[in-house]
């Protein structure tokens, strides 16, 4: 089963239609407003690493005390995001914005993994430095750029400039995986 066939199968399930016609705006609002908790608090740690905020607070203190909230926010983001995809699967699957967002999410995940398995293991050596060492600052900068890209591309999914039901350039058709018979809105 291809990704598109799977999306079409999802679209025909009763719950997909029910969410689409029912609580979609509510779920989307939760998804957007949880940005404050998830991205907002992740950004606070990035800014601490870069030395532009909370320079006198130990890095491990910021990371450890905020992490449970960031994780909780992330869980809400993933669940509400999955429900939003489930409600509009075929169009989302064929959206270049959605595809770009997923790619950026994977990169953001890798960045977290590299940070935690690398420089952060030795945090006790630089915990009190007002500005974190270079590898940590690189991770913080990448995190800020990637999450900004994720927020912006996520917002753009709602707009139909590059939707498959419109005539698109060959590049867009390729990147969005447009299939003519599956693209009726």
């Amino acid at each position, binding site marked *: 089963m291809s990704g598109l066939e799977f999306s079409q199968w999802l679209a025909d399930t009763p719950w997909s239609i029910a969410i689409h016609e029912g609580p979609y*705006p509510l779920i*989307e*609002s939760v998804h*957007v*407003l949880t*940005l*404050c*908790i998830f*991205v*907002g*608090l*992740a*950004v*606070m740690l990035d*800014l601490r690493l870069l030395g532009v*905020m*909370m*320079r*006198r*607070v130990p890095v491990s*203190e*910021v990371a450890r*005390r*905020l992490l449970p*909230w960031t994780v909780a926010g992330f869980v809400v983001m993933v669940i509400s995001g999955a429900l939003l995809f489930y409600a509009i699967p075929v169009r989302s699957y064929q959206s270049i914005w959605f595809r770009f967002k997923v790619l950026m999410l994977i990169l953001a995940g890798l960045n977290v993994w590299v940070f935690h398995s690398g420089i952060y293991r030795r945090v006790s050596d630089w915990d009190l430095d007002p500005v974190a060492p270079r590898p940590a600052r690189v991770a913080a900068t990448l995190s800020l750029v990637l*999450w*900004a890209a994720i*927020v*912006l591309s996520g*917002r*753009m999914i*709602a*707009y139909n*400039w590059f939707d498959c039901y419109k005539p698109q350039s060959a590049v867009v058709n390729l990147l969005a995986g447009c299939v003519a018979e599956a693209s009726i809105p």
Partner: protein
Amino acid sequence: MSLLPFFEWCENVGVGQAIRISDWLFPVIEGFHLLGLCIIGGAILIVDMRLLGLGLRRQPIAELARDTRPFLIGSLAVMLVTGVLLFSSEAVKCYYSFAFWFKMTCLALAIIFTFTVRQRVTLMDDARMSPIKAKIVALVSLALWSGVGWGGRWIGFS
């Protein structure tokens, strides 16, 4: 006196027209409005959570409030500028939107509260602050700013 003529005027100013005519200006400005939301959300939460005894609870409140203040003010400025631009492109729709008036009411109260009561309390010496008062301030702040957020998102659905 009705405010409607003023809203109609806003919509007909060059900026509002340009944003309305363009296919991509509104989404891009809206995108930056959302990036501002992330920062303002983080800056407010760090301090309000601390007032509630959560998150960075070993740090002095006044220090956290001072550290986050430039980001609170900076992101609020971004929100206000992008917000006014978004408003100017659809002012008449906003005039008839309950969500818009709800958001503006919460916003006015949130700004006043943040820069008077909350500011005075958070910059106070920790030892002099009563924990109950701190918690009430945090809950009022969170309630008002949540109202701004929900109201804002709901303008788009109305």
